[in-house]
């Protein structure tokens, strides 16, 4: 339960206007810090919901697949340049960003990750890696500004952020494929 409290504190901290303004002032921090941290806040709070609404989660997310699908849709939506741009313009969209990433992505992710099998986890992981490569290439190659609010250089930086994330993930995949924990533990 302590963890849920920390998650909530993180959520409140991220929602403080100066913190939000600061993180949103740089494109890569907006997408690669604020958004993942919101997901993490939800992930940490999930414990609370698991304990208090076990029936609801068992009914709607019995095998974990609905939760993973919900997570994927929400995360994919926030990967669209337009969505990010809009959250800076419309208060409603900003509100939706905070609510959706925390409660519709982070929370179901925690509940589902334990339930789904290895194949599903790998698909999500590899899928996210592929999206990172695609968006990385899009942002580094696109010759025009894709967001109203961020300059071209910030877009290129974010593109490299995606590519390096993908590289880190690839290193991890190779490590998992080459090294069997069972041989060591």
């Amino acid at each position, binding site marked *: 339960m302590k963890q849920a409290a920390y998650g909530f504190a993180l959520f409140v901290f991220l929602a403080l206007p100066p913190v939000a303004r600061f993180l949103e002032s*740089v494109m*890569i921090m907006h997408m*690669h810090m604020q958004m993942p941290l919101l997901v993490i806040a939800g992930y940490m709070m999930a414990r609370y919901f698991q304990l208090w609404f076990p029936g609801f989660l068992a009914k709607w997310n019995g095998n974990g697949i609905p939760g993973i699908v919900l997570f994927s849709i929400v995360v994919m939506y926030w990967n669209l340049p337009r969505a990010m741009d809009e959250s800076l313009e419309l208060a409603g969209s900003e509100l939706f960003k905070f609510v959706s990433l925390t409660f519709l992505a982070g929370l179901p992710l925690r509940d589902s990750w334990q339930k789904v099998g290895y194949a599903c986890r790998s698909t999500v992981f590899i899928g996210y890696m592929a999206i990172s490569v695609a968006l990385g290439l899009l942002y580094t190659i696109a010759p025009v500004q894709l967001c109203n609010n961020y300059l071209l*250089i910030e877009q*290129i*930086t974010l593109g*490299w*952020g995606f590519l*390096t*994330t993908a*590289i*880190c993930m690839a*290193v*991890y995949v190779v*490590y*998992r494929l080459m*090294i069997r924990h069972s*041989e*060591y*533990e």
Partner: protein
Amino acid sequence: METTKLQLLKDKANRAMGINPSDALISKTYMFIAFAALLLGGILGLTQGLEKAGLITLPEWLTYYQVLTAHGFLLVIVLTAFFTIGYFYAGLSHTLGGLLPKVRTMAWIGFSLKIIGFPLVVVPVLLNDATVLYTFYPPMAASPWFYIGLVFIVLGVWMCAFGAFVQVASWRKRNKGQHVPILAFFATGVFVLLFFGSIGVTIEVLTIIPWAFGWTDTINVMVSRTLFWSFAHTLVNIWYLTAASAWYVIVPKVIGGRRFSDVLTRFVIIALVITNIPGGFHHQIIDPGISLAIKFMHVFMSLVISVPSMMTAYAMFSVFERRGRELGGRGLIGWFKRMPWGDVRFLAPFIAMAAFIPGGAGGIVQSTNQLNQVVHNTMWVVGHFHLTVGTTVMLTFFGISYWLIPYISKRVLTPKINKLGVITTIIWTVGMALMSISMHTVGLLGAPRRTSYTTYGDSATAASWDPYIIVLAIGGTLLMIGVILQAYAVFHLMFRAPKGETEFPIADVEENASETPYWTERWGRTIFLMLLLIAMAYVIPLVDMIVNAPPGSPPFRTW
């Protein structure tokens, strides 16, 4: 079952009979080169100190900056790299039941690569074709062979790192579910940093080579400097981690105590590995072309590293106090007097730790933007690293040498050599104190670093620096005596001391210590987090430097 029994037997035999001769030869060779580099580097250091004070004039064929290049290179690259590898390979051999034959082969391949690289680096320096100082920043360009030599040296170091990984992985397969012995855990952390930390500088050197040959016209100086410091800063923390391994594991045994919490020790190692590499920017606080926000972020990253250091300081004093009280020390400082002050294996690392207090404080000063403006590129900085690497790291290495060299040479430390070691330690401490304090002070008065003797057209300000430089030269002379004594002790312990068995001192964990969680062994995760943090720290500035690059610089020969 059978294999573990066999392993146990082998371990026992290993303990009883000491190190096997082929493993010993590896460490002995590395140690020999390390201390030969100390001797040579020390001579060059004194030469510099005397020249700088205007007490001697160098001959036509040797310039101050050649000497400075060689001094820096020998002491901070050769000495530290060879010592670290020699020490940890002996540690791996001792704690993991002997090196595997293929690991030994890898260590020798690594050695050969370094030895191939050596003349390629040294000859251009001697010919005055590579007087670029050990930092070799573009746009100063050396002979391309100098950089090719550096590539060989890096490859040699990587080979040794991979050898260590193979050794540890094989041990873990044979000892499923167990924690890697603590010294081998330190070694893993150090070699992980050594490998990942040198990727940046390798990329830098690979872009410099075509430029030095004239195949490309220009180079991006900011990118080169950034890649260089991502490495050199990590190197600094590799020394620190190596020294800390002796503080946590060896020193408690030397004083007859137990080591501090195993969990905390492993946590400190993991924390250093993850947070280290991004700290490099604190060496570039004055560089143009890096935005203030980025510099601020990296100052934060640097200061994070002081957290494990503070934990280390706490751990050490706690170990000392507990042991001192066991020995009957009373009151606030009574325990302090009970320490074995006459034992060089304790005295040297103790002074090393003590020197890290002002050294670390100076480091925090330098990480602060406004204060850095005052001391940047002055003699202050030279004072700082002679205190940190020249004292903290060196005295720890000296302390290690008094048991490690006898251990690998199957000889013993005699009381006479121990006494010599105590004297060396004291001379070193006094010499460094004189040299470092005068360097810090004269730096605050404005004396620049990396400059040979000059009166600046008889400037009065410059003349006011002279007394400090004389003190510097006196300290340097004392240090030279220390270097000679230390080199003699090493030589004696390696080839002359009486034969016998010396123990490899490894302290046990305290009784009723809490179980160390197994996640500490998950190096894959640690490395993943480390890479993520590196990406977070470097993507923004590097993209900016490359996309908004200036025209770039042609090679310059400034000497």
